[in-house]
């Protein structure tokens, strides 16, 4: 995280109604292939002007901070700001509803037709490409780390990678050790 400048909290330019929230998050959801951050910024900041770029960054920082699916958290945080509990529920439903239906339909088709040889070959190709895309996402995320002086952050990242990805240890044990150690050292280094 870079330093966050203090932005005075402004009221949203236009307060969305529940139906508008639902539609906006449905659109974000169905336009985002392999990640929806780009589309949510475009919808919230550029098109609907419901948030300034700074407000978006703040909300996104929060959602990165929380565990779990980032964009799902974002829909709840923004939905609540815009329309309370109803807003949060409506935004969440808008985000998850359409892909849920779509992917369940695909799951159904996979159950019935997954054994067809041609489909298996297509999926083998797509799966290989999807794996490649995940590798490049990981490399891009690690970019800022590569540019830093080697330090504890590198040790933590490599430890998480090796323990979970290579040794295949349960994530609970690994994070149960790494999170407290990481926080303690970050706290100590701060001074």
């Amino acid at each position, binding site marked *: 995280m870079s330093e966050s400048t203090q932005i005075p909290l402004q009221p949203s330019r236009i307060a969305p109604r529940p139906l508008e929230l639902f539609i906006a998050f449905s659109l974000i959801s169905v336009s985002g292939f392999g990640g929806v951050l780009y589309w949510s910024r475009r919808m919230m900041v550029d098109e609907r002007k419901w948030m300034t770029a700074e407000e978006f960054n703040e909300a996104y920082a929060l959602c990165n901070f929380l565990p779990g699916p980032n964009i799902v958290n974002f829909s709840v945080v923004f939905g609540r700001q815009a329309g309370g509990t109803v807003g949060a529920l409506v935004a969440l439903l808008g985000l998850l509803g359409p892909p849920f239906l779509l992917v369940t339909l695909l799951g159904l088709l996979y159950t019935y037709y997954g054994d067809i040889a041609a489909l298996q070959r297509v999926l083998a190709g797509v799966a*290989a490409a999807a794996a490649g895309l995940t590798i490049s996402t990981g490399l891009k995320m690690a970019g800022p780390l590569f540019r830093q002086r080697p330090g504890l952050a590198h040790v933590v990242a490599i430890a998480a990678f090796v323990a979970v990805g290579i040794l295949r240890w349960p994530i609970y044990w690994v994070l149960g050790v790494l999170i407290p150690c990481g926080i303690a050292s970050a706290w100590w280094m701060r001074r």
Partner: protein
Amino acid sequence: MNNEIGTLLTLAGYFALLSLFAIGGANAALPEMHRLAVEVMHWMSDREFADMYAIAQVTPGPNVIVVTLIGYHVAGLPGALVATLAMCGPTCICAFFIGHVWDRFKDAPSRTAIQAALVPISIGLIGASAAVIARAAAQSWLAAAVTVVTALVTFTVRVNPLWIFAGAALLGLGGWI
């Protein structure tokens, strides 16, 4: 019947717990999903897991929908619903309440320290996910080559991944993979 309810409870408890460890998003939790679904519970084969990840990647929507597919595969529509709700519920509740106090908390030194610790962990976990998925998808030498080429191209060039998925699908259909 009891068995079905048992499976649903397993899905619910498992994904609810896992969601709290998904630091950096749903994809960070993939290795653990693979461990449970393939190695511990034997719900699916390595190849089926790679297939589900592929289907989730080409379906528009957040990455978390791979959980919906796993749930569907294990216990049909109820499984899909239960797995999705369990993976999103706990963190949504966190988001709902923490969003409120975030303005006071965001500049606190404790937040900076926590975030400084979490960022490298999330990077390591995404790397781990990539390793697990790449291994599951490497059904042949050519499949492994497609993975490597996709990684190189998408890392260096700004290109819509859908084109690469389409190309890889054609390569597969042609029987080269």
